[in-house]
């Protein structure tokens, strides 16, 4: 298991995850920033981490491959709160780096994990997506846990529910890690990473309609999970 700080530097949260300064990809993660950072070099600026991915880099910097970690943690975005958005939420991230780690390993690992989480009858399917820190990138859907894939209201009659993002670690990310650990040579090693929103999964699994319920401390809500 790996953990990291909730207040991160621009370098770990963005730059080393292959979000270059001024890149439109940064627009997708509205960021809460610590005051008084304007005069500091961009890479040192402090912000509330927008994802748990910086822990990938911190872990790789601290040890040579192989790496196999799971990273749970709290993250923050400068998002207006509504039924499905909260400025505070949690992610669980995974990173696997070694020689001969392949895209089919990523598929098999997540298929296994989803079956462990939602039952052995669950099927997974992958389709292309985009994240700056992985390539190839994928979104993963699982067969609807409510209707078994026949189609129902919860899966909008598609039979599938989108659950997480993943991909093969982008060589650019390894290049950042290699600044401190030269053994992260993308010609010799490879890896995969995945991440998912904890609240989103809990909301689906337990039929929770408001993400804000997780952060209100309402006894009537919490009492249902004893």
């Amino acid at each position, binding site marked *: 298991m790996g953990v990291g700080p909730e*207040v991160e530097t621009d370098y770990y949260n963005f730059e080393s995850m292959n979000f270059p300064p*001024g890149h439109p990809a940064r627009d997708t993660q509205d960021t809460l920033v*610590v005051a008084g950072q304007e005069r500091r070099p961009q890479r040192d600026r402090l912000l509330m981490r927008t994802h748990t991915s910086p822990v990938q880099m911190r872990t790789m910097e601290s040890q040579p491959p192989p790496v196999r970690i799971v990273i749970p943690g709290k993250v923050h975005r400068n998002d207006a709160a509504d039924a499905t958005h909260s400025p505070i939420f949690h992610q669980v991230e995974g990173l696997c780096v070694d020689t001969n780690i392949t*895209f*089919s390993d990523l598929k098999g690992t997540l298929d296994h994990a989803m079956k462990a989480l939602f039952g052995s009858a669950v099927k997974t399917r992958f389709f*292309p997506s985009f994240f700056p820190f992985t390539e190839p990138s994928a979104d993963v859907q699982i067969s609807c846990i409510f209707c078994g894939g026949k189609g129902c209201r919860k899966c909008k009659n598609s039979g599938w529910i989108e659950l997480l993002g993943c991909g093969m670690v982008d060589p650019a990310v390894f290049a950042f890690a290699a600044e401190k650990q030269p053994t992260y040579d993308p010609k010799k090693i*490879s890896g995969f990473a995945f991440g998912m929103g904890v609240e989103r999964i809990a909301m689906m699994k337990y039929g929770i309609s408001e993400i804000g319920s997780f*952060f209100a*401390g309402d*006894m009537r809500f919490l009492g249902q999970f004893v």
Partner: protein
Amino acid sequence: MKILTKWLRAYLPDLPVDDAQLAEDLTLRGIAVEGVYDLGDGSGSLYEMDITTNRVDAMNHYGVAREATAIYGLTLPPLDFKLPQPKPVAKPFSVRIEAEDACGRFTARVLRGVTIGPSRDWFAGAEVATYFGLLEQKQISNAVDATNFAWIGMGQPTHVFDLDKIEGGIIVRRARKGERVKTLDGVERVLDPEDLIIADHAKPLGLAGVMGGWDSMITPETKNVLVEAAWFDPVAVRRTARRHGLHTDASHRFERGADYNAAEVASALVSSILLANGGWIEGDLVDARVPAIEARTANRKPVELKLSEVRRILGTTIDAEGITAATVEGVLTALGCGLAELAKKAELAKKAELAELAKGNEVWLVSQPSWRLDLEREIDLIEEVARVYGYNRFANTLPAFGEGVRALLWAAQESEVRRTLLAAGFHEAIGSTFCSAAEAALMAPQPGLAVPLGNPLSEEAGVLRPSLVAGMLAMIAGNLHRDVSDVRLFELGTVFSGTTEKVDERPALSFGAVGTLPEQGALHAARAIEFHDVKGAVEQVVGRFQSRTVLFDRFLAEAGLTPEWLHPYRAARVVVDGMTAGWFGQLHPRVAAERKLKEPVLLGELYLDRLYKLPLRQPIAREISRFQPVRRDFSLVLDESIAWEKIDQAVAGLRIPELVEWRAREVFRDAKLGAGEYALLLGATFQAADRTLREEELQEFQARVVEAVGKVGARLRS
């Protein structure tokens, strides 16, 4: 973004699937169709698309059609708009690119004698009225609609100027300090010297790649038009757009990289739509290019791609044959990399001894199409192969695993704290990471070290919480305000302190309780939660850790040592092995009044970073003695200032192995005692592991106990 299948099929009449299948096939290849809406007889479907930001090239009809050709092995006819012969002109229209770092290409075409009017279906490939009607795209005039058509059709932003409003010619340059321009949205904008603008020889005309200018816009009276199709640098456009708070279709595309080679085709499309309503072309297309930018967009250095690398990254396929050289070539060719060119480059590569001849070791030099600026490296090409081949055609394999699982050092400790409080009847909650500056000042264990946010969600969330108490209090108040009167909560979370240069994060625990404890069967009626209930919970938590001493102390209110959020007389400090491990007690009545809380709120915080320095208590079994235990009671009289802890520590300090258990059995006060005194019945149990205790031994132990408690101020009651 919306896509019409009717428009797609106009590009690809031989599409072998129906609209639903096409939607699914595109989605599985990353060109996600979120919704399919039937538009009725003969009109096909409308796709609601969700295309990732790296694929701006596919955010238009021609781009989606190109993806379809890769899936079904079709050929996409090139876009070709035949224009009439231009009338010759003595002096071509003047275009100058001054900002050569930010504008890679600027094409200008002069159209004269045009008629501005409503749009209709002009010719095959420019069914403006039909397509816009199906898309519910507002029709404005043939000039504006022509640029929108080029945008929706092929994703190339273009602009049309009223030629007669342009003085001299076009200059693409940075703005000068103090220059102004009124943009098409009617806003008068003061320009910054970093803004990239289109100007004429006298004045700024518009923001390059973002929005055109008001004064040179097309009006119903416009007779002569200049058609602009250009390539602007992503960063320059992004900076200009951001500075002026604008996000337009054009800026969206340029920020993500436009197609350098599309300018000429888009200009021809816009021009032919305008000319369909009358008018003529004056002079040849003026095409100003910056070779340095052309070299890094349209004419990039080919990328080396090895089949072995494709297989190393992608792994096992379900199909035994796997990814072959033919797969790679088929996919990349269809996406615009060009088979002939590939073959030629592969030949060259062979001669340069780049390619290894053995099968499976093919090496290609792949030239990238001008519309795919996202294809820069070998891995980008590998992704294309995987994507078009189909992600779900790869097998599910598992990586080899050689090591055991290593948990975090404090994971067991945190889990023990959580378990203990859950067992004590508290619910776990998660409060806000932020609090107000005033709350931070009141509740921070070290005042003055709260870290402010630069763009807080609200003033009440202006700083990083230095304590979990603020959030706990907010959650308790939230329950009470919702008429939930019995609350027991705890939170495990991070607290922050430091400066805006360096932020320190530590784990903490907060807990709070208010209201009544539920009845426990017939014998124990419901009763109000009191101080000692919370103290008991704290003792249980602290008791999970292996410490030498745990004590609770309190200070006189005047000492000013009790935190200000706590009641001056109903608060205790938790001291573990001499360290302050936290505080708890009743909420200060002033704070309670400010929050309109009438009920006494009990709450506190433990500094887990300090507790986590201690290992978890690990029970070590000892042999159960076969010999008789002996109980002795000591009736003690104590001053009220002497707490049980002092007695407890004095007894523990004796370290008599045969003294196996002691406790306060009774506490009472009566008139026979002196003022400010109380009586305590200390019960002690003696037992040896290897013998029956003799009376003289017991007497010696008793004497030592009396002496020890006497040293801390207790006397035996006579």
